[in-house]
């Protein structure tokens, strides 16, 4: 009897908690989107309001400790705030870092500063280099799936003297020591080449070919948002059923996190 009662009680508790949890979940999803402004209380001795989002713009107003301000907008590391007296100006993140929210807690600015860059997922970069001794330019964007694995999409152009090539490829990138400042990475991928001759060349035809590539490179984490990267790739172009071409490319470039 005791066992049964216990079981029943447990079952009841489990069911009710599940129901409550679901109700809470439904409640959470049904409410409106998060607010776009926030009231915070200044904890620094004073904050300086600039006329524009940058240290070069003049300070025109100073708000003192314990005053309440409203944060309205962000431009890079600068926030547009409105004081209780109605003054509107731009304040650097550093002066707002210790401010207190209406809820009494310290405001976090994690949407801008991330001590751990691994939490950032989307990266955009560009690089220039040599593709079989001809100048090339590429633009890539990558999405980090986990600490060590990311997918990367690249579009590029080889700007040769007699012919040019447009290409794109998708790569899977492995970065085994991604927590290190200087770390190697490896990638493999597939994509497409489109080769077009410059007009000075007679009787040349455009070629379209699928490509596969393998690359190895080095990444150096420069500062908060920036990364330098160099890589060496081998491209194989499947020109025809029985013919394929192999090209080597070296590039170096800069990328940043969103």
């Amino acid at each position: 009897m005791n066992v049964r009662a216990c079981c029943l009680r447990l079952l009841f508790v489990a069911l009710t908690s599940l129901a409550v949890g679901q109700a809470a979940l439904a409640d959470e999803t049904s409410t409106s989107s998060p607010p776009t402004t926030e009231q915070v209380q200044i904890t620094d001795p004073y904050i300086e309001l600039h006329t524009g989002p940058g240290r070069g713009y003049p300070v025109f107003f100073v708000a003192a400790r314990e005053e309440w301000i409203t944060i309205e907008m962000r431009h890079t590391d600068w926030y547009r705030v409105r004081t209780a007296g109605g003054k509107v100006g731009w304040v650097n993140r550093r002066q707002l870092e210790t401010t207190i929210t209406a809820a009494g807690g310290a405001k976090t600015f994690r949407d801008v500063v991330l001590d751990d860059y691994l939490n950032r997922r989307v990266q955009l970069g560009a690089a220039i280099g040599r593709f079989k001794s001809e100048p090339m330019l590429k633009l890539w964007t990558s999405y980090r799936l986990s600490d060590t694995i990311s997918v990367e999409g690249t579009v590029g152009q080889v700007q040769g003297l007699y012919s040019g090539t447009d290409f794109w490829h998708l790569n899977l990138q492995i970065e085994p020591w991604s927590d290190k400042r200087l770390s190697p990475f490896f990638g493999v991928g597939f994509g497409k080449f489109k080769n077009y001759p410059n007009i000075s060349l007679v009787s040349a035809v455009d070629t379209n070919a699928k490509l596969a590539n393998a690359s190895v490179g080095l990444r150096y984490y420069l500062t908060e948002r920036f990364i330098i990267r160099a890589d060496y790739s081998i491209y194989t172009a499947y020109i025809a059923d029985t013919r394929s071409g192999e090209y080597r490319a070296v590039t170096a470039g800069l990328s940043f996190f969103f």
Partner: protein
Amino acid sequence: MHTRKLALTTRFATGFIACLASLAPAIALAQSTAPEQKAPNEQVITPEVDRRDIKMPRFPSNDFEIGVFAGTYSTQNFGASAVAGLRAGYHITEDIFVEGVLAQTKVSDEDFRQVLPSGIFTTPRQKLSYYNLSVGYNILPGETFIGAKRAKATALYLIAGVGSTRFVEQRRQTFNIGMGNRLFLTDRAALQIDLRDHIFSLDLLGKRKNTQNLELTGGFTYFF
């Protein structure tokens, strides 16, 4: 008789153990749900904290920009022509931004046709289009005064990048370097003037050489 008694005892014992075993989880459960013994240093007052429902605000930001521009592009040896284009950018920090530009102009070889009736191009006017990716640095942020009472934020920037120019069916790698000035009308809109040198090689006049192509444009930019 003796053996029978022993067997009975054994059976009883087994039954008891089985019963105990079946009850064991029940006892465990009962123990887990029963009020636990009070710790000696237990809190006397339990604060009734009513947690606030906090939603982190998402401040609107304006790190991205998109714009249109028009101006004049002077192609080395071929004179100046009107140029128009689009730009899109992202401001990474208050100092550094990246920008991509797509623009085109029509270049004429009219001047050559005075002495060479067949001209240089196959048709008198040829399209020149370019794209580039550049990195800019806001070197002089400040204010511009319009009259005595009104001041607008401005930023003078240096910019350099790489891209490609397509001209007379040739695509050439192009480096660009220049400077510009941005005048913020509001927090989201700006007027922009830009002076840029596009450097690429051409062999249209018989010999391949680097050309300097200067461009001066004015435009409108929207930040979002």
